[in-house]
């Protein structure tokens, strides 16, 4: 077992990173909760955000973190036609049809990325990404802390939106009992469309954070999708704050796995945990209460 500096630093950055990924997972979670759709293109949505962030910097030179709202809007804007043209017509055709459609979208997007952006490894220039932050024995990338903060802020914002606003009421009603909601006058389709856009925006913003903190390429999407799924399952389906906790828990456990078994086993730990929770605690470690 490595010494305290290594352990604490690794776990700290794992926790921060987990929280950072929590935002992306949240996008997946609300789409799953409201539309009963496992959005297999979520990883690609994340990449769309990352590429947007990259080009935004290259064209305008503004700090990617400043550009976040723009990216969010762009990605959400892309999601809406996707919903209208591809998902809405399948509304009454069971979950599989929509899931497969999004799966097809994901492979199309992957190829589009290669075609238009080349297969190069990219990374969003961000000064914080190369700045360490040292507190006592713990050293973490400053970017992780910033990403974590942004992610937490965004998650809290979504939590407020879902639990305090009229749209949030409609959203929860549509998720729990679409038929009843419709009878009460809720336009469930519109709610679903906006939810889908919101989920995509979360992925997009998450993409910028990840693109700045790490590197990405056209085929990076899949691993982030699986990560997000794991977080969603850990946090409990549709539980907004749960995704944050889920992210942190996953991050911490993965770092522990990395420390004890070697960095290669991070994802192994993640997946094993994912399967275990999925099979034996489907409500999530916190129980499935909706946020």
């Amino acid at each position, binding site marked *: 077992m490595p010494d305290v500096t290594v352990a604490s630093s690794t776990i700290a*950055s794992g926790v921060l990173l987990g929280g950072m990924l929590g935002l992306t997972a949240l996008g997946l979670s609300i789409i799953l909760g409201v539309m009963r759709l496992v959005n297999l293109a979520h990883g690609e949505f994340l990449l769309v955000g990352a590429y947007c962030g990259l080009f935004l910097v290259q064209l305008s030179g503004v700090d990617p973190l400043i550009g976040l709202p723009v990216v969010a809007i762009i990605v959400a804007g892309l999601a809406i036609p996707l919903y209208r043209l591809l998902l809405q017509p399948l509304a009454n055709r069971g979950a599989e049809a929509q899931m497969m459609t999004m799966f097809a979208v994901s492979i199309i997007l992957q190829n589009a990325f290669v075609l238009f952006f080349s297969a190069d*490894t990219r990374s969003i220039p961000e000064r914080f*990404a190369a700045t360490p932050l040292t507190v006592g024995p713990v050293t973490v990338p400053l970017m992780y802390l910033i990403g974590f903060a942004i992610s937490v802020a965004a998650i809290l914002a979504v939590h407020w939106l879902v639990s305090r606003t009229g749209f949030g009421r409609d959203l929860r009603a549509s998720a729990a009992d679409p038929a009843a909601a419709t009878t009460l006058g809720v336009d469930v389709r519109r709610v679903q469309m906006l939810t889908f856009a919101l989920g995509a925006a979360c992925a997009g913003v998450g993409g910028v954070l990840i693109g700045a903190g790490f590197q990405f390429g056209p085929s990076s999407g899949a691993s982030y999708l699986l990560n997000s799924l794991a977080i969603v399952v850990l946090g409990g389906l549709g539980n907004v704050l749960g995704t944050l906790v889920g992210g942190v828990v996953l991050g911490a456990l993965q770092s522990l796995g990395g420390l004890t078994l070697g*960095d*290669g086993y991070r994802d192994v730990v993640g997946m094993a945990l994912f399967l275990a929770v999925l099979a034996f605690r489907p409500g999530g470690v916190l129980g499935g209460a909706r946020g």
Partner: protein
Amino acid sequence: MASNRINRTIAGLAGAIALLTLGSGGAFAADEIVIGASVPLSGPLAGFGSFVQWGYKRAVDEVNKAGGLTVDGQKKMVKLIIRDDKTDPSVTASNTEALISRDKVVAMLGSCTPALVNAGALVAERAKKPLVTGCDPLEAFKSVRKWKYVWDLFFDEPELGAAQFKALDELGIAAKTNKKLALWHDNGPDGQVVGGKIWPALAKQFGYEVVQNAEFPVDNTQFTSIIAEAKNKGAEIVMVDAITPQAVAIRKQMAAGGFTPKVLNIEKGAEPVQFAEALGKLSDGVLVGGYWDPTFPYPGAADLAKAFEDETKLSSSQHIADSYAAAQVLLDGIAAAGSTDPNKINAALAKTDKTYVVGPIKFDENHTAKLPIVALQWQGGKTVIVWPKDAKTGDFLFPLP
């Protein structure tokens, strides 16, 4: 009911066959010499693939401009077919199969990196079709089997590994460090050879203390604990063997982890330009072993790089050279054989003895030809040769900024 099922079955089979015949596109004209290559144009190694593709194409174009090759007494144009293997060995294999069986190639050029090259090479070997490749370090290449039809011109891991140690030694850099060495490498074939075997041995020989030797899978993205440990162990020299995405991740996470060794060497991943593009200033000072540079005193070296940069508006990479040379070796072999018969071509390849853009090429009994090694260092988004002294184009940047 039943009979109608049967009808549909038959209809289905008919349709199937119709589709299959659609699928056959085995166009192959007798007045051309068809050669082929499967290279990674997408996936993690696409960075290499694009250079390799350019090198192959250039060599073939030059031959065709010169009027083609003479086989069986008549001039024929050379047709090069390139397939994308998506950085997936099983795709390389099936691509190579298709090249042989569908496109009827007489000989082939290799992919890039051992995993891919070997997968294709095994197919060629079995089909008894000559295949010339670069981009496959010789130890990894030799470790697969005794080759009869596959030829590899590239650097030799022990030499590459030694290069950095020699450089640090001769340039008197080593003396300025605590000689504490951290070794990080992926668990791919060449990663294990270089990082797992060669480096530790050399470290002992050159009197370094290996404070850490970490292995990680090729798709790992998190290196925080590895980095934290090296930092904690006070390593001042770090040698990494990883592919480009990981090379970028490692450099970034080192900076973000507040770990700045005096010397950082990242083999294979730091070669392509996208490494510097993705990292910007962070790439400065990173060492990478190289086997070619436009300044090499070999025929056409400077022109090759210039041609590439004019054409693609990208800064050149050494991968254009070994691929270009490999293609030339093959084309010369075909010309020498004066035939498209695989065995004759193969025999001719065995006799290869000529100086190409990468230096003199002569295959040994293991079908390998060594390329000389230099130590390159990223400086301001370009690589400069810092070792050996006679070839150097710039001064060693020390310590790592």
